[in-house]
């Protein structure tokens, strides 16, 4: 059971070769430990280091910073394979989202300090955006960073932060000019060993137990002034710039996960019988599978279009939002029907479909809810 590349249009031979490596590494390092990750609510450091060593982390970082300088399609390969495997290890957050902020907006000291170790997996990054009182509406955030001498002093709390327990560094979205709305937001790197920084409990979630998710507290946390990424009060613009890639990354996970749900249901219903014949042979099953296979065909074609467009620098914010919206909603449809086709086994956590179904629900919420995607797309009309 693996992703079929025969009809794909986004990848060349180099990517295919890389994919073979990724599959081997994940099969060896991650797959045997998924149950542990689920139980423990976190992916271990060893897996991060193994991924780093095999070149799975941050493949786009430029050679001058110790990276491989590859195109984003290599990230896509990792994200697809991880989602298809059913692991929600936070590698994509590191490679597809966090590292770009460090590489694009960090000063030399910041790049020097973090990029190499993010590639190796020695440093795990998180991005702290959402707060207990706000959802996807960034203008409502309350965390502040005050400039006092050569330092920023940060106060506030964040929630639903992926990699929150593991994180060695946190990119904090904070108000540096509380009166200026979206024009008063900056991004500041906080090292996890700074006094005043605290992690809350690893949150109890419906799914994605392997992705540690936390509240984070900042109580008079002091960091050097040049821990800021880019210019003061420009954070909102940087976030907007990076959002398309983040949303595309979620769309990729969604599509690969949907394919896995489909494959699970096909395999299951071939074996399992009801009323004397394999479930897959009932016409209703055939029709449901036909519907799902159709959605997957359409989805892969669209995803490759979006990946190619992103790599050509043409993917707009509205297009990326549409991709996130469509692929996450489609994943929910596919996962729900795939579970239903399992019958009673479908709600047993021991079957991959049950975990997948729980895991996928949040894709319609994180990275901006479907409703926020619609607001973004709606504005482009």
């Amino acid at each position, binding site marked *: 059971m693996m992703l079929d590349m025969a009809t794909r249009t986004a990848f060349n031979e180099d990517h295919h070769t890389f994919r073979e490596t990724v599959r081997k590494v994940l099969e060896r390092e991650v797959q045997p430990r998924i149950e542990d990750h689920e139980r423990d609510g976190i992916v271990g450091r060893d897996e991060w280091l193994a991924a780093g060593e095999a070149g799975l982390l941050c493949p786009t970082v430029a050679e001058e910073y110790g990276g491989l300088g590859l195109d984003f399609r290599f990230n896509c390969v990792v994200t697809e394979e991880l989602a298809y495997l059913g692991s929600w290890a936070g590698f994509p957050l590191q490679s597809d989202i966090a590292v770009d902020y460090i590489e694009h907006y960090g000063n030399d000291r910041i790049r020097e300090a973090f990029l190499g170790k993010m590639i190796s997996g020695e440093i795990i990054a998180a991005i702290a955006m959402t707060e207990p*009182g706000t959802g996807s509406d960034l203008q409502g955030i309350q965390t502040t960073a005050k400039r006092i001498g050569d330092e920023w002093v940060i106060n506030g709390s964040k*929630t639903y932060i992926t990699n929150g327990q593991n994180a060695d560094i946190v990119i904090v979205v904070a108000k540096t000019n509380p009166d200026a709305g979206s024009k008063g937001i900056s991004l500041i790197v906080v090292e996890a060993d700074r006094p005043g920084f605290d992690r809350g409990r690893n949150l109890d979630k419906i799914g994605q137990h392997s992705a540690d998710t936390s509240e984070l507290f900042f109580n008079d946390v002091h960091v050097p002034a040049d821990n800021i990424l880019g210019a003061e009060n420009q954070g909102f613009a940087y976030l907007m710039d990076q959002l398309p890639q983040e949303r595309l990354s979620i769309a990729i996970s969604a599509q690969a996960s949907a394919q896995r749900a489909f494959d699970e249901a096909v395999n299951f219903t071939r074996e*399992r019988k009801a009323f004397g014949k394999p479930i897959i042979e009932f016409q209703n099953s055939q029709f449901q599978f036909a519907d799902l296979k159709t959605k997957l065909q359409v989805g892969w074609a669209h995803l490759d279009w979006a990946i190619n467009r992103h790599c050509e620098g043409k993917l707009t914010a509205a297009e990326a939002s549409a991709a996130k919206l469509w692929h996450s909603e489609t994943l929910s449809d596919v996962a729900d029907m795939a579970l*239903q086709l399992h019958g*009673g086994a479908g709600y047993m956590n021991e079957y991959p479909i*049950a975990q997948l179904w729980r895991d996928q*629900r949040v894709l319609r*919420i*994180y990275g901006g809810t479907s409703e926020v995607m619609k607001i973004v797309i709606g504005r482009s009309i």
Partner: protein
Amino acid sequence: MASDRAVEIAERVEQFVRTVVVPYEQDPRCGSHGPSDDLVHEMRGHARSAGVLTPHILSDGRHLSHRDTALVLRKTGLSPLGSVACNTFAPDEGNMYLLGKVGSEEIKQRFLSPLVEGRSRSAFFMTEPASDGGAGSDPSMMKTTAVLDGNHWRVNGRKAFITGADGADIGIIMAASDDGACMFMVDLPNPAIKIERILDTIDSSMPGGHAVVSITDLRIPADQMLGASGEGFRYAQVRLAPARLTHCMRWLGTCERAQEIAEDYAVSRQAFGKLLVDHEGVGFMLAENKIALEQCRLTIDWCADVLDQGELGLLESSMAKVAVSEALFKVADRCVQVMGGSGVSGDTIVEQAFRELRAFRIYDGPTEVHKWSIAKKIKRKALERRAVSEEKS
């Protein structure tokens, strides 16, 4: 219309669930296989004091009408723990109904009374593992056997998805004798009945969870047969439609509560400068839920009326089960979505409602099996109509 008596009972139940049971929802004894027996006993003690234990069965042993039961069970369902606390949950509620209908006086005395008093828990051993080629949702394929051996029956077989088997005091076991299907009453635990494993499932409201059970040379005294040999399917049908419907009742209550929580969230939280509820994207979801909840209530009451007329109600309960389980799942899903990040967290019962309703679309017959049987009934009726019209012409 529900009777005045039922309205009065329902009010007391609602008061109890909201004030006493709801605070237990964050209790650590609520595990992934349902609330612990310790927690169950504690809540039952409160229910007994408040006079809302087993509220759908009157002191003389009679049950409320199905229509009245609908109102009362909706209220016990206002918390996923409420039905357990009030002793209206599955499978005990259905088992009590069955024993009341077909049990002899001795059986009622010995097995029904402790259930009604909330002192015992029971399990219904019907479904068999589909992987063994046994009776999944199809009881005519029963593989568990019962052989008469002197004045005892010897029972052998395997059962799956047995809700509440772990920790149950009383079992109703279905097995096939030469006469056909039979039902037996047994005390639990019994060394011949082995719980192979408790399934780890996405729902988590039912004490004891769902178990796979093997039965090996279980000896049951002949007088512990429920009713007559070979009548087991008929008895199962007595239980079938009402038990389907009480699931609908309880989960309707739970989703009504989820909707309240989502509504409260939507009027207390701002996004982009206005209350969430003032965003049409949110308000319309809540409006759809309101409509769907009303339609679920109407559908349940309709089916309850059919049962109250003494019908078996197999078609109507199939229709109600499909309509209510599918609609309530969508309601729960929209509640999750309205609440965003907190919707997928354990902070409120919304995420549990979402998981529970997902499972309900499968147990007691998946939607597809019900549609299949409804379609067969449509076919039969349309063919009859055709025959009549051909005769006329």
